């Protein structure tokens, strides 16, 4: 299985008023197409920073990242945006739907940003997949939290335009009650399996992490453990 996402010796530092601060310290990992990775750790351990770097939202201070076969750390912001537009989808903890747009319009957005035709039809298909075909014209404020997150998931899957598809989910159940959270996770994994999407998931929940094929535990910006939960134990090669 070829790697769709790999990172090599990542360091990330920021300057603060109290001097430089290291957010990530020598992280390496590798993820095969269709695989799922759970990143866990305490608050401030660097999970979200790692997620952002892997998705190409920012560049690490040091190290290299390959996403869908391209070294995104060698790219400028515009080029990284182009890669994201093609093969990255996001699900956020607080949904991040645009309040001025309806459910359908929010899901249309990634296709429109790529300048694709048929964005509305595609959006309706994805909203049907998440069970919101009856909520197409509703604005986010008219939807429940669970419904908003389902729209966000539909938008994330509408983000992919090719075979290489990686879904980054940042605490996707963090703003939901247990019942809704479980439904959302079921939906996420179901769609993931259907479309052979690669999944990178940041979560606090151990139960959720256990549903992923691999698990990366972080502490103070470094990898505490990196293990396969499916018995495939070849991860020591890339772990810190």
């Amino acid at each position, binding site marked *: 299985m070829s790697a769709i996402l790999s990172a090599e010796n990542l360091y990330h530092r920021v300057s603060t008023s109290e001097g430089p601060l290291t957010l990530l310290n020598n992280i390496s990992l590798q993820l095969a197409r269709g695989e799922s990775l759970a990143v866990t750790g305490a608050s401030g351990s660097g999970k979200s*920073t790692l997620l952002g770097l892997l998705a190409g939202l920012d560049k690490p201070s040091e190290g290299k990242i390959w996403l869908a076969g391209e070294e995104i750390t060698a790219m400028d912001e515009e080029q990284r945006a182009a890669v994201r537009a093609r093969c990255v989808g*996001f699900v956020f903890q607080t949904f991040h739907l645009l309040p001025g747009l309806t459910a359908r319009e929010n899901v249309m957005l990634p296709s429109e940003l790529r300048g694709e035709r048929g964005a509305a039809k595609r959006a309706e298909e994805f909203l049907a997949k998440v069970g919101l075909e009856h909520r197409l014209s509703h*604005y986010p404020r008219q939807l429940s939290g669970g419904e908003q997150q389902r729209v966000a998931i539909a938008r994330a899957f509408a983000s992919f335009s090719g075979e290489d598809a990686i879904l980054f989910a940042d605490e996707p159940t963090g703003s939901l009650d247990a019942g809704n959270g479980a439904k959302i996770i079921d939906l996420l994994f179901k769609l993931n399996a259907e479309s052979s999407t690669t999944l990178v998931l940041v979560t606090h929940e151990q139960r959720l992490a256990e549903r992923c094929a691999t698990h990366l535990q972080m502490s103070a910006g470094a990898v505490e453990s990196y293990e396969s939960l499916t018995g495939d134990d070849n991860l020591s090669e890339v772990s810190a």
Partner: protein
Amino acid sequence: MLPLRLLFRDWRGGELALIASALVLAVTCVTAIAHFTDRLTRAMEQQSLTFLAAERVLRSSQPVDTAWLDKAEELGLQQGQIIQFASMISANDQFQFVSVKAVDSGYPLVGHLEIRRSQDASSEIVQQGPPPGEAWIESRLMPLLEINLGDSIGLGDTQLKVTGLLEREPDRGTSLFDMGARVLANVHDLPASGVIQPGSRVRYRYLFAGDDQALKEYFSWLKPQLTEHQRILDLREGQPRVASALNRAERFLFLAASLAVLLASVAVGLAARRYGLRHTAYVAVMKSLGAGRNKVLAIYLGQLGALTLIATALGLALGSFIQAQAVNLMAGFFPVAPPTSHWSPLLVGLATGLACALGFALPPLFRLARTDPMQTLRKDWSNPDKREWLGLILGPSAMLLLIWWLSGSLAMTLALLAGMALLVGGSALVNQLLVRGKLASLGGAWRIALGSLQRRAAFNTLLIAAFGTGLLAMLALVFARTALIDEWRMQLPEKAPNHFLLNIAPTDVNGMRQMLEKEQVSSTEFYPMVRGRLIAINDTPTKELKDRPNGVRRELNLSWTENLAPDNRILEGGWWDKTSEGVSVEVELAAQLNLALGDQLRFSIGGLEVEAPVASFRSLDWNSMRPNFYMLFAPGTLEGFPATYITSFYLPPENKLLINDLVRSYPSVSVIELDKIILRIRDTIDQVSFAIESVMALMLIAGVLVLIAGVRASIAERLQEAAIIRTLGGRRRLLLKSLVLEFGLLGSAAGLLAAIGAEATLIVLSQRVFELPLMLHPSLWLLGPLVGAILVGIAGTLACYSSVSQPPLKVLRELA
């Protein structure tokens, strides 16, 4: 298409409404003011042209070459002719010295005549003078000549039937040719009358009107051919006082328009900044979905472009509609029928829309495009990009260029800049003083109000500056207007002399003085007057001077006196003692002639020459309506020359018959009735005052709307805060009181700053633009904070009222 689709969707969500309304407001205000001032200025110009009865006049002491008139005909210009002279008329063995004005059918080209067809009829407006064989006279001639309407008067060898009483003529002047009662006749009767003989003192005025380009072409062709006896008069040259009033009015109106632009741009800036902040989260999401910086910029520039075009078009239409309604409503106040709309105010509106959008809305969008997509993961929506320099440079620069373009005055632009710089710098300071004060210890509502001010310290600095700008504009306008009108009123004091008596024989001076005293009319001194021409300065003939000022191109009235008139002031040299000799020269003419004390001036008087050294330089007030002279000689120098005397006095309208008694007792005396001329000037000034009042009203509306726009920019935060306080048990009344306090404090702080800024602006404006004397305005310092507190308190509370009136649960759910 994506930007348009997003604009539409975003608009539906209500996000762009504020910035669009700010832009519409900006363009509406400016277009309305530009339209209104353009039409009013053109109306005033048109009215002022009636002082000439034409758009241009060629004045000559001889009939001009007919080829000149043919050329005007060829260029399609309208023409009229006036021949003016002083003459005797007769009726029933009575003779009267009058000012005859013979006109052709073209007169007047601009303005109209007012006559009465019978003594008890009301006046009617006519567009032409009398037909051949008829004359219109001033009513006071009727008792003097013992005639009635329909009787004939003799002018030289011809008889003219009096068919009208002349009430008003547009171009009644003050020259010697206008002295005495007026008889308006037709030029075709002059040859038969034989009153104009070779050597007669006659003034020919050729009137022209028509297309601007044709007029320009004609006078460029004519100018090189003029002799020194001929002069072109236009609005500015013909009536310097009116021209100066108009010039000041123009500057004032443009100042108002400039301040409206400034106010509007502040509103756009506030709205755009808020828009940028609100969209940070959206852009971060879009970027995480794959939109690059250029894509984001293209989307938002597309939105801004579409928004600007739509808002500007709407603003142009609204502005044009409002001004059309205003002009229709106020048509009665316009000096002449309001001229039709011009396209140039639309250009001003369009430029304003673009300048506001590009200068003030663009910088927040550039900052928006630099949003870090990692913010979606950090859940932090503060804009980390601290590079606000673009906004600080671009907006003010765009406004300054626009104001410079609008006003055409660098001095005015710099004055505004000085005021604004003071205001922005002071805003931060005042804001700090306000939030660090001990007012919170007053408890309850004060604490909430102060807390709110503290939480928005940075934004409040901007709000204080914005409110301050509005108040500064209003205060500066009110005070500049007051000072401006005061100075105008001072130019024409209520009891300024309104009659001049000329041609008083030396033997009549005492008798006339006694007659005036008996009627309790106080006159100025009786000044002797000798006409003479300045022909050489230190033996250099004045003909050889470059750019010869008017004072040496014509004969001057020379006089002498022992007493310096109250409106005269010696600036250099000294006034006479008994042994002095020499001449005191008016300071501006002296500067034009480059004179120094002691220079020898040679005058030609009736063929004889007189030399006198320059003894002093003297300032005088031409607006005092007293006899004043460029050249005043020491007593003893000119006594040998035949002189007549001149004086002026104020005569109330109810004593007008005294003029008849005077003329009857002293038939050779000529009377110039300045009251009629003053009435015309006062009319014009009243129109100018009205124009200023109108612009003030529009400015006030613009100011209040901008204040509301500024407050609305923070409404979302306020809704949330109010909802939280109410959820925690805070009463609505407490919140309302805190709102009043918050905006009252903000308003008074802005008012204080505005007072400082307005005072600074007024000082610069009064010195550099309006040329008014330096004055400080203590009332401004009281009025500023008070008006600020009331205006901002009411506007802010009303704008935020929804934050205390809406159920907290609804607010919290919507904002979640």
